[in-house]
């Protein structure tokens, strides 16, 4: 029997813009299983990024339940959510979130440094991930010296270094040409196969959905299944 990785139950989120209140997520319900690659497609402003941030524990829902790998995020304080982001869920933002002053190695090492992993283990683990992602020889470069595809790979490597159960990628191919986009999507499939990671990708590009196991569509804050619900 497959394990549930993420469970969203009646999730609502709104933002205040002056006197106006905009409902970004409306009654979102979903179950994502362990080892699935899920694509969430929708136009800009439909609530895709907000949904990812709620799963990552970067934002809290107004109401509803968010359970990630058995942890109810509503019940966790800021320290608890930090632990979840450090060890269970990894989030790759659209702009990659790399620190330009640090080298590729130091950027990838950061989550392990935060986790308090000792130096020799950090060195070993980062070297393994660099080899797996295919960034050999780029360890000492600053992100500014890398191409868009390589920067995306560094962000994926940083997300992968703690071996998370859930990987969240916000528009991972938005800044790439089609050839690099295919490479990144193939890499996600390899990660799923090798580590049984649940990968949730949000995108506005429908071509990306060819590479996922399940696709859902998001429109004006509501989430709908596009592929058959085979997990039932």
């Amino acid at each position, binding site marked *: 029997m497959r394990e549930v990785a993420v469970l969203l139950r009646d999730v609502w989120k709104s933002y205040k813009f002056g006197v106006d209140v905009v409902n970004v997520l409306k009654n979102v319900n979903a179950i994502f299983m362990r080892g699935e690659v899920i694509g969430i497609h929708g136009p800009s402003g439909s609530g895709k990024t907000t949904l990812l*941030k709620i799963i990552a524990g970067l934002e809290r829902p107004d109401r509803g339940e968010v359970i990630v790998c058995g942890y109810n995020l509503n019940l966790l304080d800021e320290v608890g959510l930090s632990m979840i982001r450090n060890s269970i869920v990894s989030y790759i933002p659209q702009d990659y979130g790399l*620190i330009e002053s640090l080298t590729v190695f130091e950027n990838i090492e950061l989550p392990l440094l935060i986790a308090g992993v000792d130096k020799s283990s950090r060195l070993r683990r980062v070297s393994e991930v660099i080899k797996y992602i295919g960034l050999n020889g780029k360890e000492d470069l600053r992100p500014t010296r890398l191409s868009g595809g390589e920067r995306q790979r560094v962000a994926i490597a940083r997300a992968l270094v703690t071996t998370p159960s859930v990987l969240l990628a916000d528009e991972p191919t938005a800044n790439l040409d089609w050839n690099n986009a295919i490479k990144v999507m193939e890499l996600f499939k390899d990660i799923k196969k090798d580590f049984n990671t649940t990968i949730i990708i949000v995108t506005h590009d429908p071509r990306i959905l060819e590479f996922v196991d399940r696709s859902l569509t998001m429109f004006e804050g509501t989430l709908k299944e596009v592929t058959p619900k085979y997990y039932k």
Partner: protein
Amino acid sequence: MDFKSGGLTAIKILSRGKGIYIIITTSSLLLYYPLFVRNSRITYLLVVISVLNALVAVLADIDTHNSLFYTFRICGATPSIFTTYIITTSSVITFISLIPILICVDVFGVFTSLLMNTSVTSSLLYMSYIKVKKYS
């Protein structure tokens, strides 16, 4: 753990940023006055310049500090790691900018600068952190 992640990252960021060079250069130039000119009015001027110097040092690297806060948050840094980062950055900048005033051996000047520089640098960094936390 907190010192390793917050403190060491702060030192790496500072040593590779623009701010530390600005502050070292200005502080070195300012050393001339307390060493060769003994004038109480200049001490007050030094205090003002020292505060401005610390302010510029933080602002010169504010984009890096912002992206670091954002990345720290994504990577699961606890609030205490952010605090360590802010304290380390603020302390290093305050200490270097304080050197010309320490030479004066002016108790009032030293304490005023210490208070002002620490307040200015840590408040700026803390506001930056809150902004990143709110909008990320």
